[in-house]
């Protein structure tokens, strides 16, 4: 094993230290892009020196000292420039930041706040979503441009440009390096959570056999979520998102069957569910609820996932509770897909006729026109009601709408079963 391999050790140190380093530098130089450049300079210096000297006892402090020297050089040059521009106010700021003692003390005290500032900045709404995602993985995840590019299936050059432009946008918009307060905070936090969940979903949907970096995005998103929960422990939706991710991740190993066939939740082998992640997810959900955030959209989705997680077998699922949660979600964050899921839950809890009533209301919904799950759900409910001819039509329609060969086969099987006069067992 290569624990003594210096390159891998430096990579590991970078993964541990880079976010904090960039965050602390960003507060000093007040420019996230510049902060990253300075941090990278320090990394280059480490790559040059440590193979000879060995990894220092306190690698974080070594990197910070190295980066800070370069920061001071940069700020001196900027001050000379500012003097010529007579930016007195900024100059005073710069002089204060150069005080070594303050920098050292600030490293310890404010690092939590600095990391939070960095998260909010990387996810600033002035940036396009994909730029926020790339910048977050770069600045807070410590991933290289190549790694991010591979994870999102884009060419490295494209990703590199995306990051360069993102930094420039932040600088030009003079986005302040701060934690938003007051009325702005909720919306800005929602932006951060959206980015983290996007990263998670990208990893979650990656198929087996793809580049290992893609499923690893789930772990990275989970880690970022947990970091955020530590930085903002009083925000219920942060815990709600962490809960949702832990619970979804707990099912990762049961989602795919032999041959790569996707397995529906209700048919998954629950002994393959990761119970450690389930416990963690339930704990995070409890935290969200204790903070009064039970009705947040992430907390509600997590509560639905928790209902499934608590059921030791599919038959023990508390469908009435799930239906009630979808009710709440439909009011809070309505969408046709939420309504469709509600139809399924209502059908399971109160019988297929009730479920069909909800699903029927969606047939005119334009957003679901080409969504194969709508006819699939209607087909299932109709079959349970014994309306087999109609059910068959729906299954065939669904098969026509999906491009996934396995799903198609499954749906055509169900259509054939209806044609044979077979009602579903449950």
């Amino acid at each position, binding site marked *: 094993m290569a624990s003594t391999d210096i390159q891998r050790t430096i990579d590991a140190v970078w993964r541990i230290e880079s976010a904090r380093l960039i965050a602390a530098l960003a507060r000093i130089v007040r420019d996230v892009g510049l902060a990253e450049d300075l941090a990278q300079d320090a990394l280059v210096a480490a790559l040059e020196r440590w193979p000879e000297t060995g990894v220092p006892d306190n690698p974080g402090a070594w990197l910070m000292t190295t980066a800070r020297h370069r920061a001071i050089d940069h700020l001196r040059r900027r001050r000379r420039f500012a003097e010529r521009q007579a930016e007195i106010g900024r100059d005073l700021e710069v002089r204060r930041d150069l005080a070594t003692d303050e920098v050292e003390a600030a490293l310890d005290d404010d690092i939590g706040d600095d990391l939070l500032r960095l998260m909010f900045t990387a996810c600033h709404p002035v940036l396009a979503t994909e730029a926020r995602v790339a910048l977050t993985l770069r600045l807070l995840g410590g991933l290289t441009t190549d790694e991010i590019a591979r994870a999102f299936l884009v060419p490295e050059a494209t990703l590199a440009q995306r990051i360069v432009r993102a930094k420039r946008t932040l600088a030009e918009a003079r986005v302040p390096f701060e934690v938003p307060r007051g009325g702005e905070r909720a919306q800005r936090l929602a932006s951060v959570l959206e980015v983290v969940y996007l990263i998670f979903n990208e990893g979650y949907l990656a198929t087996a056999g793809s580049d290992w970096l893609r499923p690893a995005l789930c772990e990275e998103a989970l880690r970022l979520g947990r970091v955020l929960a530590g930085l903002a422990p009083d925000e219920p939706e942060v815990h709600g998102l962490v809960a949702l991710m832990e619970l979804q991740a707990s099912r990762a190993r049961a989602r795919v069957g032999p041959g790569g066939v996707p397995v529906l939740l209700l048919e998954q082998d629950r002994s393959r569910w990761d119970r450690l992640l389930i416990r963690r997810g339930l704990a995070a959900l409890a935290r969200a609820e204790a903070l009064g955030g039970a009705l947040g959209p992430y907390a509600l989705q997590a509560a639905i996932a928790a209902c499934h997680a608590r059921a030791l*077998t599919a038959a023990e699922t508390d469908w009435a509770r799930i239906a009630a949660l979808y009710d709440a979600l439909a009011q809070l964050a309505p969408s046709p897909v939420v309504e469709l899921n509600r139809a399924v839950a209502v059908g399971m809890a109160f019988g297929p006729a009730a479920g069909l009533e909800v699903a029927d209301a969606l047939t005119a919904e334009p957003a679901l026109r080409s969504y194969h799950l709508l006819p699939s759900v209607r087909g299932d409910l109709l079959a349970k009601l014994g309306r087999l001819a109609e059910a068959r039509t729906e299954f065939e329609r669904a098969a026509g709408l999906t491009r996934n060969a396995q799903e198609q086969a499954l749906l055509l099987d169900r259509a054939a079963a209806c044609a044979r006069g077979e009602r579903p067992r449950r």
Partner: protein
Amino acid sequence: MRFMLLMIPKGYETAAPGTVPDDAVRVEEMMKFNESLQKAGVLLALDGLHPPSMGARVSFAGGKARVTDGPFPEAKEVVGGYWMIQVGSRAEAIEWASRCPATDDEVIEVRQVQEVADFPEDVQQIAGDLPDLQRRVGQRD
């Protein structure tokens, strides 16, 4: 009460990197056992561990940490995997352990897990903050 069931397979201390269970029947039996723990609602966690040849040791002496890569020739036996279960009594834990489809070459060690209330008082005082912290960051019930 929570218990760890530590699986100690004879010879695993010298297993090569990348060793995986290849006996399909045995794997199937283990999965059935895992399922029975889960269905009974007692399973809290389980994991298999790669052999020490893929691991490392860190020892602390003179205020410094010394790292050594596996394998470790002097090790007589090593943990190959574990289950963590939640049961009402020690006897129940032993009963579950006895149902494990282990072979003659395996030993299962049953160890009770400490709850914070079990710690000595001064440790409680400090360690007591930890569950609080974990609860605050949403990582513990």
